[in-house]
């Protein structure tokens, strides 16, 4: 009985894994009804065209969900901040931070706005957020457009909440990394690399 309990406890430390491959019904993408798990044997006049290519995700350059591109900009015409982040492979969640030269730190959650169906990338966005207003995550920012000495950072996480990537840039990336590490329990300044 004790051995069974120990086995269950040990097994509990290692999650069971289930792997789902990409779409198995690829030959139906050509249009029309096709039971085809196999490619067509004979080419009829209407089937002379090559079957559509199966979408394959581009090879990510870093861990799945890592930051590929990021921008944190203020559009003076709207007087609003806009954050856009593209990840390599699917991520779970993302957030962006901005720190002023006086040490004020704001963090805004990013919203998934587009995703590659084949898992190649995700696009996250926050804003437009009203600039120079009362800071409210994802809605408005206390930082005014044109403020000098700003530092920016982006953090991405996987679907189970694990830290995937942290990128910083701007006037004082090191100071921002320290401030973000102080604000987030599972993040250290060493996790954040320059964009």
């Amino acid at each position: 009985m004790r051995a069974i309990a120990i086995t269950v406890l040990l097994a509990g430390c290692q999650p069971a894994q289930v792997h789902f491959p990409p779409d198995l019904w690829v030959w139906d993408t050509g249009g029309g009804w096709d039971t085809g798990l196999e490619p067509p044997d004979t080419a009829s006049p209407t089937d002379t065209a090559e079957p559509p290519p199966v979408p394959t995700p581009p090879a990510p350059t870093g861990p799945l969900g890592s930051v590929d591109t990021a921008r944190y900009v203020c559009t003076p015409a709207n007087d609003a901040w806009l954050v856009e982040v593209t990840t390599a492979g699917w991520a779970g969640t993302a957030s962006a931070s901005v720190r002023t030269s006086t040490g004020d730190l704001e963090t805004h959650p990013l919203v998934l706005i587009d995703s590659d169906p084949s898992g190649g990338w995700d696009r996250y966005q926050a804003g437009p957020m009203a600039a120079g207003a009362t800071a409210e995550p994802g809605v408005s920012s206390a930082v005014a457009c044109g403020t000098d000495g700003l530092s920016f950072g982006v953090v991405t996480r996987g679907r189970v909440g694990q830290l995937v990537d942290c990128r910083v840039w701007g006037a004082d990336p090191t100071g921002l990394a320290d401030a973000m590490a102080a604000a987030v329990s599972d993040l250290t300044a060493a996790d954040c690399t320059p964009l």
Partner: protein
Amino acid sequence: MIALLTAALAAPQVEGEIDYATQLRSTWRSLPSTRFEMRGVSRPGKVLGSMFAVYLQAARYQHLSLDVGIGGQPGSALAVRGVLRRHGAVEGSVDLWLQVVPTLSLGATAGTSAHLYYQQFWFMQANAIPFVGGRVQADLIRARKWSVGLTGRVTCDLIPTDLYIEDAEIVRLAPVEVQVGVRAQFGRAKEGEP
């Protein structure tokens, strides 16, 4: 004369019918109490499903009873990105029941479930996952040898499961599952027991 002849011929038949009926009744009484259940299945991250199960009463002592059963749930869709991916299960379990009042019982359940995963129309993988949980059942209609009632079950998987979606996304399957449904019980306790 004819009446006597008729009675003589008929007598063995009547005796035979009584013997057969007695034997049938005895056989029926020797069968263990059997319970059939049909439950709706709710698990976060998954479309509502259904489960069918049958249980046999293995032991009974006053207000305690021990049931063993098997059940299965057809695959229902997982809320993950991409094409249709489904999750079903086949399980074996042991239920320990405590009759709180004549129409209400509380219980504990433990067992192992073979989680079955499908993508589109194809079976993909099976994982054996042990689980524990609690049970409750209440009688709606109760007769001497059968009853119909409501039943519920909450279980928690002892091994977490991570779903790797096209090797690009990892989603952890919620370990808690809630089931509510109806059950029909046939049979009775053995002679001399409550």
